[in-house]
């Protein structure tokens, strides 16, 4: 079965720095990879999607890369702010988008 691994340890960074989160997967060839943000006690919120034939996608301070050879996605938040503190989840989806497989998430804390 597919396995999705995200940074196992919580990530603490100083405000203004770039946060880099990792999502590695095995036993699966997703057509899409998504990133979500989840705050305590709330449902996840969609941030970005990247397709298997795309190397990089940007949205404001967010950047996602997708390397299907390494089976890895990197999620970057530049000029990080304390408000960026949350858990970030990656999710893999098939070509039909009917099923999604989520990672355990990485907890990010941006220190003022």
């Amino acid at each position, binding site marked *: *079965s597919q396995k*999705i691994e995200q940074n196992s340890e919580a990530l603490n960074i100083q405000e203004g720095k770039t946060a880099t989160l990792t999502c590695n997967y095995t036993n699966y060839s997703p057509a*899409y990879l*998504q990133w*979500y943000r989840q705050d305590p*006690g*709330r*449902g*996840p*919120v*969609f941030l970005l*999607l990247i*397709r298997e034939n795309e190397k990089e996608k940007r949205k404001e301070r967010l950047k996602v890369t997708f390397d299907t050879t390494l089976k890895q996605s990197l999620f970057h938040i530049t000029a990080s702010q304390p408000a960026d503190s949350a858990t970030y*989840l990656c*999710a893999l*989806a098939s070509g039909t*988008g*009917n*099923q*999604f*497989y*989520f*990672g*355990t*998430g990485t907890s990010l804390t941006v220190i003022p």
Partner: protein
Amino acid sequence: EADIYQTPRYLVIGTGKKITLECSQTMGHDKMYWYQQDPGMELHLIHYSYGVNSTEKGDLSSESTVSRIRTEHFPLTLESARPSHTSQYLCASSEASAEPYEQYFGPGTRLTVT
């Protein structure tokens, strides 16, 4: 803020009781999903629906059942709650076609079975 609602937000119930977790969305989305999430763990898909009268089981085996009689409504039912059902249940919806298959999540129901 997504227009998807779940009730109740918190529920503490005794073993053997029947419960229904409600999920409604006002976006007209055809696809709806139920996930189970334990603290610090990944979301596991337990049920999904492509539209009215369509329901499928997800990868995680669950003793719950779902129904989809109306587009906007996707309730989840446990006939006899057990302590092993204690978890966070998240409902989500997305458009039927076209990328990015963005899922809109509700706030979740935290269920505790004593």
